[in-house]
């Protein structure tokens, strides 16, 4: 054969390493933050390959002085913005309380969305109420925005007798068809092709509802993500594919999902679909991007993939301590700020909000959450008593219970009884 090998240095394997580890001082001063308002907003009918640069930039609306600027600034009235702020603050209050409940041994597990509230709430505000969401486990903000009862959420978290999912699912794995919120899976990214399928069905039926789905940047590596993007591209499905790039996947930084090489929004370019990269801590930018993508979907322009660039301000879940693998200073050093503070500052800057009202609202929301918790705990907490009849375990595996489950159920009941349980 030809291919004479040149006298080359040996190969070496590159293994990514985050910039800061425990003990390091986090310094993001070199992170380029493009100015708010600087990104162009293509027509929603523009071909996907006419705005590739949007996959590499960062759509930002809120500037340093709290003003909403540029072509992406959404036409949202102050009421809507206050509702948005409120949903974000409520989500945070809810997270705080439920995290604490887990620490108090009232349930097995919890996951906060702290610092990422804008991603789900900005999105939920931009979608129609009957659009279908296929979330991952960190979009509780959608349920809260859509008015799903806090008590029902807590009942699920406690797996108690009020749990709509009958104690079957790990805490926070909500499901509410009525709310347009698909059953959350423990298996990452499986919801992605499902969302595309739902959207394809809606399109095939000449419906007007669209679908949206979310996954973390780490989860984009799963095969399901790729299948979904391929299907979405091929059939021009009316779906919005959201990547929540909070820069961490448990202990693995985004470099292990490919962030050293390019943005996650650039995946869209690979499939020839529309791609946006958005400041995920800017609720108005998230809203605007979702609104734009929804219009594309509704007008048969096909799918949009949106990278929401944000930061996971706390641990992955109640099961980990983030200071074991990243600099303790990162959350505060992160330059894109806190989404709640930024929207609040905006409302104050435009004269539609003030510190007093904010504090009052925080107090009120804390009370609301506390009251809901009290209510929910009336239905029980995990591990303290059996909240579902034993044999409920056998229901719902199939629509009709087959003989073998009936038998197993009966045998269990008999045994429990014989044992005096």
């Amino acid at each position, binding site marked *: 054969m030809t291919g004479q090998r040149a006298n080359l240095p040996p190969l070496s394997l590159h293994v990514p390493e985050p910039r800061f580890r425990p003990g390091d001082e986090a310094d993001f001063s070199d992170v380029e933050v493009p100015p708010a308002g600087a990104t162009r907003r293509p027509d929603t009918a523009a071909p996907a390959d006419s705005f590739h640069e949007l996959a590499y930039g960062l759509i930002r609306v809120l500037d340093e002085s709290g003003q909403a600027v540029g072509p992406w600034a959404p036409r949202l009235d102050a009421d809507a913005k206050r509702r948005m702020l409120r949903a974000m603050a409520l989500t945070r209050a809810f997270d705080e309380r439920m995290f604490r409940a887990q620490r108090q041994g009232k349930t097995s597990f919890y996951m906060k969305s702290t610092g990422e509230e804008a991603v789900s709430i900005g999105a939920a505000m931009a979608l129609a109420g009957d659009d279908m969401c296929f979330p991952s486990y960190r979009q509780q903000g959608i349920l809260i925005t859509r008015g799903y009862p806090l008590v029902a959420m807590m009942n699920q978290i406690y797996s108690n007798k009020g749990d709509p999912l009958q104690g079957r699912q790990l805490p926070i794995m909500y499901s509410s068809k009525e709310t347009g919120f698909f059953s959350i899976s423990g298996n990452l990214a499986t919801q992605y092709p499902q969302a595309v399928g739902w959207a394809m069905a809606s399109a095939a039926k000449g419906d007007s509802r669209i679908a949206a789905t979310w996954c973390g940047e780490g989860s984009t590596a799963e095969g399901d993500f790729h*299948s979904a993007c391929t299907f979405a591209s091929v059939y021009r499905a009316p779906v919005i594919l959201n990547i929540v790039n909070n820069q961490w996947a448990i202990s693995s930084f985004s470099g292990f999902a490919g962030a050293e090489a390019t943005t996650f929004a650039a995946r869209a370019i690979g499939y020839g679909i529309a791609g946006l990269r958005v400041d995920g801590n800017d609720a108005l930018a998230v809203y605007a991007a979702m609104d734009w993508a929804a219009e594309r979907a509704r007008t048969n322009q096909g799918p949009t993939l949106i990278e929401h660039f944000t930061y996971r301000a706390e641990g992955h879940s109640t099961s980990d301590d983030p200071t074991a693998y990243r600099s303790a200073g990162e959350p505060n050093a992160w330059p894109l700020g806190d989404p709640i503070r930024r929207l609040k500052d905006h409302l104050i800057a435009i004269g539609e909000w003030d510190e007093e009202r904010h504090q009052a609202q925080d107090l009120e929301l804390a009370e609301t959450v506390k009251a809901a918790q009290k209510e929910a705990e009336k239905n029980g907490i995990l591990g303290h008593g059996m909240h579902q009849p034993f044999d409920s375990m056998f229901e719902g595996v199939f629509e009709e219970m087959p003989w073998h489950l009936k038998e197993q159920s009966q045998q269990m009941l008999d045994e429990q009884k014989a044992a005096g349980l």
Partner: protein
Amino acid sequence: MTDDNQTTARMNMIQAINSAMDVMMERDPDVVVMGEDVGFFGGVFRATAGLQAKYGKTRAFDTPITEIGIIGVAIGMGAYGLRPVPEIQFADYIYPALDQLVSEAARLRYRSAADFIAPITVRSPYGGGIFGGQTHSQSPEGIFTHVSGIKTVIPSTPYDAKGLLIAAIEDNDPTLFLEPKRIYNGPFDGHYDRPSRNWSAHPAGEVPTGYYRIPLGKAATVRSGEAVTILCYGTMVHVVANTVEEMGVDAEIIDLRTLVPLDIEAIEESVKKTGRCLIVHEATRTGGFGAELSALVQERCFYHLEAPIERVTGFDTPYPHSLEWAYFPGPVRIGTALKKILKD
């Protein structure tokens, strides 16, 4: 469950399967078929031939080559309210979709407390006997029968194939519908060196042209007998029936038709009558569905058993290309096992 007085026609198993989808697409606008090459071409085995021309591209369509996607998308469509019938081109290629089938389709009803369901019917040709080598011959049913929340159906005749497929499509649970490709064109007696037959001579090749159902979970007694009960399904039903006939054994042959949920009554009744039991399948032996059948029979008929339950199955090796007929559980192996059971 049949429309009365309907006309019948001679069909092979492919045609019967095609007819089931045709009938269901006609009756229910929410039924869609999809998969690799199933659209314009009508499937590599022609099972979906003509459906795109008749029902349009949004109801019968080709898909990208990603089994994850095919099943994941079908689940999403099911959640929307459609009744998708995805095809996996060969059962050997179902593994990439396993997570979507096991963690999603099979679990959706349960985990959402019936808020969402996945009424999908996954069709896939399976089994050996066509010199397909190790990746066009597998029988993976044993993986799925272990998974709670999914039904597994395997027909053995054109008549059953149509009736069972209609029942599966109408079922609100996810169903794996495995099609024994060796008998698509005709029943197979296990003698690969004899001329092949086609369904035209077989009574079950006479198939109603319209709608009818064969309920899931009901076995068929292919032959009544007193000497031994033989449990089998798919291609093996015919191999067993022929071997029994050749040997002149008074066996009761039960074609399971549905593996989950299983027709345990039919099995129990028969084994209690005969006192002996042979289980035959093409899948590899260890941990195959035959193990479950053996365990169940033993648990329920222990005091009626006069001889050990035997299993004749594929060997615990991949399906070898050139030694296909040594691997295939044919008349010699079935015959030997029968003699052993009857001797004791």
